[in-house]
């Protein structure tokens, strides 16, 4: 498996906290989204280096968290600290993880979303029914007449 960060277990643990496992689906860490995240980071400058930067910050910060907490709590509190200290890049990090997670067909199956391009199929809407206008079309015109 490709890992973006030099500390793969930390990366997986962080992603599993960002989006936790649910039902029979692993969290964002266990789902194996690394190659997708890597592609997304490489294909557009917006996300370039974002994941590594954030995991580095979390890794550095975690050493300052009190060791009275258990491992997961320390990690959560380290992520929160990074979020408040670096809000802009953290927001991009969350956007990137969410994009990768919610583009995954396994997630789509779970939430009832049809995978693939949104064209050419689209959706069906009930046809236009003019009777909905019955009330409003009885309103007196109220636009202001000025030349």
């Amino acid at each position: 498996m490709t890992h973006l960060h030099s500390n793969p277990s930390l990366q997986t643990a962080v992603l599993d906290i960002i989006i936790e496992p649910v039902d029979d689906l692993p969290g964002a860490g266990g789902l194996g989204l690394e190659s997708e995240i890597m592609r997304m980071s490489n294909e557009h400058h917006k996300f370039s280096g974002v994941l590594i930067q954030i995991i580095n910050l979390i890794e550095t910060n975690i050493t300052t968290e009190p060791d009275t907490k258990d491992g997961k709590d320390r990690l959560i509190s380290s992520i929160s600290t990074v979020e408040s200290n670096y809000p802009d890049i953290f927001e991009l990090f969350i956007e990137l993880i969410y994009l990768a997670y919610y583009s995954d067909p396994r997630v789509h199956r779970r939430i009832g979303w049809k995978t693939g391009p949104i064209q050419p199929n689209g959706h069906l809407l009930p046809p236009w029914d003019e009777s909905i206008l019955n009330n409003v079309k009885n309103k007196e015109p109220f636009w202001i007449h000025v030349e």
Partner: protein
Amino acid sequence: MASITRREEADFVVVGSGASGAAVTWSLAEGGFNVVCLEQGPWINPKYYATNSPDWQYLQRTKWDYSPNVRKLPQDYPVNDENSQIKVVMYNAVGGSTIHWTAHVPRFHPSDFRVKSLDGVAEDWPISYFELEPYYDLNDKMMGCSGINGDPANPPRSPRQMPPIPLGHDGERMARAFDELGWHWWPSDSHVNSIDYKGRKACNFCGPVGLNCERGARASTDITYIPDATKLGAEIRPNSTIYEIVSDPKGKVRGVNYFTEQGVAEFQPAKGVVVAANGIGTPRILLHSKSESHPTGLANSSGMVGKNLMFHVYAGANGLLNDLPTPTYQGPQALIIMSQEFYETDPSRGFKRGYTFQIGRGQGPAATAIGNAPWGAKHHEEFERNFGKNFGLGAIGDDLPEEINRVELDPKLTDRYGIPAPKVIYRVGDNSKKMLAHAVKQAEKVLNKAGATNITRNPLSTNTGWHLMGTARMGEDPSRSVVDNYGQAHDVDNLFIVDGSVFVTGGGVNPTPTIQALALRTADYIRHKRTDLKS
């Protein structure tokens, strides 16, 4: 100049091929003028629209983002909007920002043209609604309008080309809520096909209208005006970035200097120039076209070029509709109904002019999560609560012009050719703040009536600078305006401006039908009164 390749002279060169540039190009070509339309962006093959890709959610936030500062495509110039409360969005390609637009097309009200006389604010326009009406109609025919007559908030008008887009269960629920409050609402007018029109297919309600579709259901000028214009002999020259409009010692314009895709400078001479580069791009070019005869920038003896920038101000409320038979992401995102209950001035509200309510649907999974679900233990719960149920009611408010809101040339930031980038300075005015506070309260009332839960307020949207207006405004007084009522520059009689820059005020509705109607009216004027500019 000496080393620049000189092209053959055209009657007119049009700068930009978006909503207004395409309309004027078509009309001038139809009038027998020899027209070259120069566009900095490329042709976009509809095959490559994001809606055709499984990766569309990612593309929507990167290469297809609304902001040029995020996309950073080769044809995008950077916009310094650090000092603007509202961030600028636009698209640069053949078709301009209509490649990205949502195609919601309400018209201005007659009162919008008379705000000084009626309300004592800003300035009256030098034209009236009724002078513009035939051009609105012509534009609807060219773009294709879905909608229905009988709206009590607007003057009667000729029939739309197509019936309204169906409202969907969510739209119907909101319509009933407005009915129960006794408030106005009406199906949106849209330049999206509800049935097949002029070889373009009907909408199949996939959702993100702003990403465009290969069906051509949503009108954009690359598939409406432009093909018709080229059939009439107009030339569209893509990947051509104008850096200067050239004027002679007498002050007349003689053509434009531009860079080809390869970075080669060329000169396109013309008898007349029409600028249609939008409310940010147009002042940028004019300010950059200084010369001995126009030392403060082209057509800028009034000092008004770049001033009076208006966006529309947006605010509203969001909520969840939990008991609908279909998810709220099904159906075109923003083309459902509108309400103009609060459009005209009512002194008891404490602000002048007013706003239109528009409805926004839910979005796909990633956008829903990004907007609503926090990371961590609550993520799945919040996602599930919102997905397919969230819904918004937004107000688009009339943003009155103020000279301090403006576009300048950035002293440092440039595009890839070294042309100065625009610097945007803008803050929301007091009248707008009061208007938005009012709108948020009324939006909550409607959502409550509709049975929405988890209602949250949105006091101001900031990534919504898609209506770019006022920066080369029209008027009768050359010391207070840039162009006359036909879009002809006061200072230069063979220079015309046709985009949203010429707006005197913004109205409380989306501007593009008004932009296009004004462009068609300018073209009509040239066709009939400026035959001196025809070979």
